[in-house]
């Protein structure tokens, strides 16, 4: 299966701009399906971006974040060709990781 994480990181002077799109249902636990049954909560709890082993972005997420979330930020210190590791953990313990090159 293709990765659930899409990343684009570009070095821009001493700043690195990062954009990421993550495929995840992000069910809040408050929505009912067509049969009237509650859809159990299923959302990402922690999202981490690591550059050279150092966490540059850490997000503690809850049920209020929308489906297929999109994140954009920039950090100092990245250089072209460096690896950026992105991973998430959801409330069911599922996880996904991907590594992107800064371009």
């Amino acid at each position, binding site marked *: 299966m293709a990765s659930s994480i899409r990343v*684009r990181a570009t070095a821009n002077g001493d700043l690195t701009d990062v954009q990421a799109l993550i*495929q995840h249902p992000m069910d809040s636990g408050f929505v009912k399906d067509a049969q009237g049954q509650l859809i159990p909560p299923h959302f990402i709890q922690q999202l981490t971006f690591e550059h050279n082993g150092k966490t540059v972005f850490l997000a503690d997420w809850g049920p209020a974040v*929308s*489906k*297929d979330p*999109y994140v954009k930020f920039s950090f100092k210190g990245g250089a072209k060709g460096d690896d950026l590791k992105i991973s998430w953990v959801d409330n069911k313990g599922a996880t996904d990781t991907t590594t992107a090159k800064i371009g």
Partner: protein
Amino acid sequence: MRARSVLTSAAAALAFATLASLAASAIAATDAPDPAADAKAFKKFFTDKFPKVKVEDFVNGPYSMNEDMHKQWEEKEQFPPYEFALEAGKEMFSKPFKNGKTYADCFANGGIGIRQNYPYFDEKEGKVVTLELALNRCREANGEQPYSYVKDEMASLTAYMAFTSRGKPMDIKIPSDPRALAAYENGKRYFYTRRGQLNFSCATCHVQSPGERIRAEILAPAYGILNAMPIYRSEWNGMGTISRRFITCNSQTRAVPLEPQSDEYRDVEYFLSYVANGLPISGPGARP
């Protein structure tokens, strides 16, 4: 004084004569449907109303109407929300059915770069055939279950097919078959007919008021409105096909939506695509 009144009455007579001849040509126009003239007038209406908008930008719907939105969208397009659907569509398109055949066997040119030819008028069936319909017929002919016409798999497949056709000009033909002309006329009638509790026609929003706000949304111009289909709508939290758009438009004006791929929807798609001939395919699109 006297000379002036003679002059004005002469002018009035002239004006009357022009009016009368205009009225006569208008009557002639309504008697015999003329899609080519319709398309020309349709385009002229929008280019006159929005002289600053580049013609090929109309396919970008609300973004062509508002500079700020256009900028936001350009940024969004670098990382578009339809990417997952596009990738899924590409995978589904190349994956063979149980009998070993693929979608490519059902379409001209292996299904690549053909979105601009849909919908077309099928002279054997005597009806308009849309891309969604052709896809489901392809599935059924190969012993597979048809997909829902409004979202998910269907939207992913059409997203991929539209993507391979990006930039190609819409190329809808009306064959010399009275039924084709009737389908076109029926679609046109549907487009301009008011319905629902709010008494809106499609044209009320998309011809009369493009660029205006309807609550937080900016209305898209009807000219080239289908070229961006299917779309990822943030409001839907996902992808939707042309059928989904028609159904939502109907229910938002508090009219009773039709079944997806009903004759009227097929005809209105035929009409709207025909009058957008020459505009580039820009699908899949992203809309707020």
